[in-house]
């Protein structure tokens, strides 16, 4: 990473060195070219229809990954907290919505809003009771990471204590499908993609154009400096948790809506693909996380063409490992930007 930015110019530079130099200067270009070549090979090998169908599935997966990944990356960017409990926040949101939709019997949309709001409230609660006091004490990485793991255990198993370990379903129609250009997408899945795209666009706009969004980016860039310029950091941190946890809650609801069922472990199994998206996009970079999530979603679904579907989560782990090894600062954007 740092060492490789020393450019080996001059007559001694070999082709490999030149390529490395080029790849370091244009990581996204190189990565997307490789991905394009793989996509083209799959397209030729398996035909347009199968390839397009898997791509549609990949976009559905990528859209709820993106909602989860943005929250994970924002909390890291602003608070330097690697939140291993984030996957279980998705679980929490989904189960709150399940409770309202199935047990109480309110319509899906109302249950979804309840899931978002209560998960956001839970996020604020963890900030006030855990993260703020720990920041004051200048806790180290180990302390914070193990605390998020403890929190993950508590959330997942409190859910299991109340709801049991079995598979649960929402009270919505997940079997209707829509045919379009000979491609199939579930009606609910289409709604999931639309909700995700609307919310993601709103968040992207908010980060770029509103005062609170600019303040969040300032905090992510340099927390102490932002504080001295008079930004009310407390308010921004609380808002970050509302956004991060709220989006996690929404992502969880959309996961159960598009997969059809969930259990208390579902969120945790999504955590590593979310980390993959975040690292791919450059940790702390919200737009990068969005792009990374789409890449991971597509890669997972495309992998089901040559390999059996049970291998697809391993694909995202491999992408994560490869990116960490060759370019830990991510493919999209530069480090420490939001």
């Amino acid at each position: 990473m740092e060492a490789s930015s020393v450019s080996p110019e001059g007559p001694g530079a070999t082709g490999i060195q030149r390529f490395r130099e080029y790849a370091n200067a244009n990581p996204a270009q190189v990565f997307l070219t490789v991905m394009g070549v793989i996509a083209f090979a799959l397209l030729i090998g398996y035909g347009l229809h199968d390839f397009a169908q898997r791509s549609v599935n990949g976009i559905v997966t990528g859209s709820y990954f993106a909602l989860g990944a943005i929250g994970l990356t924002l909390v890291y960017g602003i608070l330097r907290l690697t939140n291993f409990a984030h996957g279980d926040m998705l679980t929490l949101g989904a189960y709150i919505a399940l409770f309202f939709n199935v047990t109480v019997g309110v319509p899906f949309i109302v249950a979804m809003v309840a899931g978002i709001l209560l998960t956001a409230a839970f996020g604020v609660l963890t900030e006030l009771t855990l993260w703020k006091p720990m920041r004051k004490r200048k806790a180290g990485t180990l302390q914070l990471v193990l605390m998020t793991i403890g929190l993950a255990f508590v959330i997942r198993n409190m859910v299991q204590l109340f709801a049991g370990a079995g598979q649960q379903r929402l009270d919505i129609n997940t079997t209707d499908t829509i045919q379009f250009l000979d491609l199939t997408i579930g009606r609910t899945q289409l709604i999931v993609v639309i909700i995700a795209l609307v919310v993601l666009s709103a968040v992207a706009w908010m980060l770029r154009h509103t005062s609170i969004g600019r303040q969040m980016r300032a905090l992510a860039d340099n927390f102490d400096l932002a504080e001295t310029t008079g930004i009310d950091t407390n308010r921004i941190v609380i808002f970050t948790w509302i956004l991060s946890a709220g989006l996690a809650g929404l992502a969880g609801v959309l996961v159960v809506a598009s997969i059809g069922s969930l259990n208390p472990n579902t969120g945790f199994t999504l955590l590593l693909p979310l980390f993959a998206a975040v690292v791919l996009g450059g940790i702390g970079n919200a737009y990068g996380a969005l792009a990374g999530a789409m890449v991971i979603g597509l890669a997972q679904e495309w992998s089901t063409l040559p390999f059996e579907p049970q291998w697809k989560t391993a694909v995202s782990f491999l992408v994560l490992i490869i990116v960490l090894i060759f370019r830990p600062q991510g493919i999209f954007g530069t480090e420490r930007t939001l």
Partner: protein
Amino acid sequence: MNSAAASLIGVLPDNLLLGIETDFLTQWQFWISVGILAGIYGIFTLGLQLNVGYTGILNFGQAGFQALGAYAAVIFVVELGINFYIALPLSIIVTIIAGILIGLPSLRLRADYFAIATIAFSEVIRITIQNARDLTGGNQGTISLELDNGIFFNESWLKVSSWMSENLFDPIGLSGSEYLGLPLLVVVWGFLALGAFVLSRLVRSPWGRVLRAVREDEDAARALGKNAFSYKLQSLAIAASLGAVSGWFLVLQQGSVSQEAFEPIWTFIGYAVLVLGGLASFSGVLFGSFIFWAVYEGMRAMDLPLTSDKDAALRFVLVGVILIALMALRPQGVLGKKEEMVLGE
């Protein structure tokens, strides 16, 4: 304990409280099985102690190393027909090679990135075990412990075990089915004690002093001409080999292996044991592991009026609460040394 658990759930009527099973506390069988588990996860956590407590690297892949050791040993014996006592050291070699291959690219990374990378590696190992049916045999990666020609993985061990029962425990009156686990208990704790002894000598040696220097300030260690990267790699390889040893014993204790025993939560349970006992203390690992498993198995044996999945959930909530409380109130652990606790930025 009982009343605390009861008030936590808030669903137990008073008259049931006295009905909770506590007879197990006076039974040998219970304490033998607690001891075996504490020993197995003690060996597992010795590796984490070397990594986290003495080297300052966050190894989140220990369950993957454990899986590799367990499956390699079983495959060598059952599928390749290799002698049990040769298969065990071979499985350690396989795991050490894996540790080096994983460490080489990822040890350059920052602490939290390294943690994520190792957890991803361990999941790749587990998913491969789950899905590579040709290699691991049974459904969902449950390996068959029996060879076609009738050789069992644990055949050699059972010979040792019954010899120990006949010659060591029967003469002093410890015979019968409730003492069946005694030989495994003795062997596991023998390995644990040996491991703790060797490691505690190692960290006091010149080698160990460099390790701690790397933990305190990697740049300073490097400035003194020490190859910090190589020391971190050695630390990870040793931890991986301890993971492999704990893997064999898990197979011998459970009688069969399923990939579920190697999910990342078991690495995290290793961390709970680690911080419960204390950082930078090998005797802390023994203490932490025993306390953890006594409480964990005790809650399981209490036979609370809950379904089994909710009963399990309650135990894991407790694990989470222990982790949070320790990190908030006593991050160095019960027997740990505060001045040796550095894993900051």
